[in-house]
């Protein structure tokens, strides 16, 4: 009897063991199947959010990225081998070009994503001034799709030329202002690498809705397999990749971040402490290499008409000069977008002043809330359901509010951790503020689509952090008339008889801390156009060709008016639920409270 029981118990154990084995195998199989980020398309979006050509346009950009990568590889092979010499050792003669080329190769590497389908450049192409390269995305969902089709981020891809010049984020106590950092909300502070642009480059590769690796070690892993690994080792040292990656690294790194299988673990690649440190160093080198490329004269080129004008080699047209005067004068644009010039022109003056700064950057490195309306087309609002990996980007839907710098200082939902607790107290004074980007290259477009403005032929861009504006005319008109045509409505609900963006501006998404320097400037229609004409003088590529500006293979758009450009894609904002407590309820809470 006892023996029979033992046999039965043994059989039961064997059954359970076999079942566990099968179960583990099946789970493993599911995990393998789930490791392809394109396994199942994620589409929680109502009609009108995803553009109909999204798949073909994504493929088009991937081809263009690959082409530029091939060019960079060819350039690398023509580089003379640097000589490491001196004390401290320097890669003499070609060290600069070597590290910049390395950064370029990284920036255009589609393999730096779980699906090997997304590079940094997929959202930042040179022909768009390194902003979003898909016109239909700029026109609709605004945030670009990531490695998992179609998770998407929450903001427009910010232009990165001249971003390397932003200083480490600091609160200037005398001026009562934050200066520096990178990203729209300045969350790449530079606190550790001391270069915000480099720390910015460490964000998207592990952003769940962008390149989407589950672990920063995956970047070291993929770089160790890159064809340009010898260049990396030449620049950063031969032992850089002496890291023992376990066998499962390939599978882990092919699974996007946020997948339920990771259980919230942000270091799922099992590395020894020493190897983890070496992988972290590789990730820092990644960041510094990309920063070197973005800071190079190939990207931050200072090659615009305006630069030629400063050098006395270009005469601004009458409209460009009028726009320049307005930019500094009644438009008051240069109270934040500093032009570095020596004087403000009176109406009867010609500009004869010498350049006050050699390379004016057209930013004060600060942040401001301009009172931009909420853009209901932003794909982020709709990602409320789990994708096939069990990941939810935005559980709050339209309860999400973009408080920009304020959310960052609070380490609130939608931003990153704030490394400086002493800054947190200032959050209510900066709610709604976004970085004052350089206006250089704001008007950059592919050569065959020479404008951002209808009737064109034009290249459709999206402006500001949430892409609400579809033309520079609309941007300038907003600064000019935001308060004159203010209505207490959300986008898509302007009163009958008015036209949104023409004589109706919906209410701000965040009405705290709205900058009142502009909003009712009294500019005429012609004067607005002149400011646009001046902004167009800030596009790089005038004094010499802009690297890889010739790679756009998509179509230009034609027709319509810059004032109403994109209005056919306006959708009504749904009734807004209260702001989520993980955003607006985090101390110190916004003052006044945000509904």
């Amino acid at each position, binding site marked *: 009897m006892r023996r029979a029981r033992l046999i039965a118990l043994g059989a039961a154990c064997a059954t359970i063991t076999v079942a566990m084995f099968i179960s583990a195998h099946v789970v493993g199989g599911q995990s393998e199947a789930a490791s392809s980020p394109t396994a199942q398309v994620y589409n929680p979006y109502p009609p009108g959010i995803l553009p109909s050509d999204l798949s073909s346009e994504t493929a088009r950009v991937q081809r263009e990225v690959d082409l530029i990568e091939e060019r960079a590889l060819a350039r690398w092979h023509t580089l003379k081998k640097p000589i490491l010499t001196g004390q401290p050792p320097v890669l003499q003669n070609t060290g600069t070009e070597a590290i910049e080329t390395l950064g370029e190769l990284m920036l255009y590497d589609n393999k730096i994503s779980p699906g090997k389908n997304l590079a940094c450049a997929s959202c930042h192409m040179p022909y768009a001034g390194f902003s979003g390269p898909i016109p239909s995305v700029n026109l609709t969902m605004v945030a670009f799709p990531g490695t998992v089709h179609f998770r998407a981020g929450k903001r427009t891809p910010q232009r990165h030329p001249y971003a390397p010049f932003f*200083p*480490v984020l*600091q609160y*200037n106590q*005398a*001026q*009562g*202002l934050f*200066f*520096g950092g990178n990203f729209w909300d300045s969350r790449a502070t530079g606190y550790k690498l001391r270069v915000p642009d480099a720390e910015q480059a460490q964000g998207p590769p592990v952003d769940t809705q962008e390149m989407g690796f589950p672990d920063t070690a995956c970047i070291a892993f993929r770089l160790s397999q890159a064809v340009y690994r010898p260049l990396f080792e030449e620049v950063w040292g031969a032992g850089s990749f002496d890291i023992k990656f376990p066998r499962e690294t390939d599978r882990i790194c092919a699974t996007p971040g946020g997948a339920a299988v990771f259980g919230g673990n942000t270091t799922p690649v099992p590395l020894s402490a020493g190897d983890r440190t070496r992988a972290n160093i590789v990730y820092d080198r990644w960041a510094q290499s990309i920063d070197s490329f973005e800071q190079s004269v190939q990207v931050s080129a200072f090659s615009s008409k305006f630069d030629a004008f400063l050098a006395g080699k270009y005469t601004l047209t009458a409209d460009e000069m009028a726009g320049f005067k307005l930019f*500094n004068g009644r438009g*008051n644009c*240069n*109270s*934040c977008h*500093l032009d*570095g010039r*020596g*004087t*403000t022109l009176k109406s009867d003056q010609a500009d004869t002043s010498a350049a*006050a*700064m050699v390379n004016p950057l057209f930013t*004060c*490195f*600060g942040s*401001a809330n301009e009172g931009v309306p909420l853009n209901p087309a932003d794909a982020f609002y709709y990602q409320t359901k789990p994708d096939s990996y069990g990941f939810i980007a935005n559980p709050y839907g339209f309860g999400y509010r973009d408080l920009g710098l304020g959310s960052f200082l609070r380490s609130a939902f939608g931003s990153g951790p704030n490394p400086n607790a002493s800054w947190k107290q200032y959050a209510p004074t900066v709610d709604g503020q976004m970085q004052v980007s350089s206006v250089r290259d704001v008007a950059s477009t592919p050569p065959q689509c020479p404008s951002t403005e209808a009737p064109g032929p034009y290249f459709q861009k999206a402006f500001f952090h949430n892409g609400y504006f579809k033309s520079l005319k609309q941007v300038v008109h907003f600064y000019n008339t935001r*308060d*004159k045509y*203010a209505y*207490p409505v959300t986008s898509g609900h302007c009163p009958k008889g008015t036209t949104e963006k023409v004589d109706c501006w919906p209410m701000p998404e965040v*009405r705290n*801390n*709205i*900058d*009142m*320097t502009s*909003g*009712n400037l009294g500019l005429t229609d012609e004067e607005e156009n002149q400011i646009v004409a001046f902004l167009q003088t800030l596009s790089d590529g005038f004094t010499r060709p802009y690297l890889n500006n010739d790679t756009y293979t998509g179509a230009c758009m034609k027709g319509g008016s810059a004032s109403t450009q994109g209005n056919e894609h306006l959708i009504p904002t749904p009734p807004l639920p209260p702001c989520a407590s993980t955003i607006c309820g985090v101390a110190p809470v916004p003052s*006044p409270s945000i509904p």
Partner: protein
Amino acid sequence: MSGALAILAISVLSCSLFGQVSPTTPQAPRVRIIEAPKVELARDYLTIIRWTTNNPGGSPLHYGVVHYGTDPHNLNETAKSPIRLNPDHPSTVFRVRLDDLKPQTIYYYTVDSMQASGKSDEVKSPVNHFTTP
């Protein structure tokens, strides 16, 4: 002229050498209103008060401040809005938003401005009034 050059030099140096500041202008000895406060916009959801002073200088971020209320002897509400000084401009326009006032109500107000630190520019304006729609 030499004063203007000095201001320019300060502006340029402060921007190009230190980076993490906006160009500043020296603080004006006295801040005066040169265009009186008035209602720029009066809607049922938003009122904007606007006035102009000489450029107060000091911190590049300034706040326009409106003290207001329904009793001219008790202006117990305060609204403030940030603006950026333009160091090249001789004057500065302040504009302040007052949200969600009561309809068809007489409001009394005075204005002031202050630096980012909260230090008042010591502007004095008489008590004005307006009626909301």
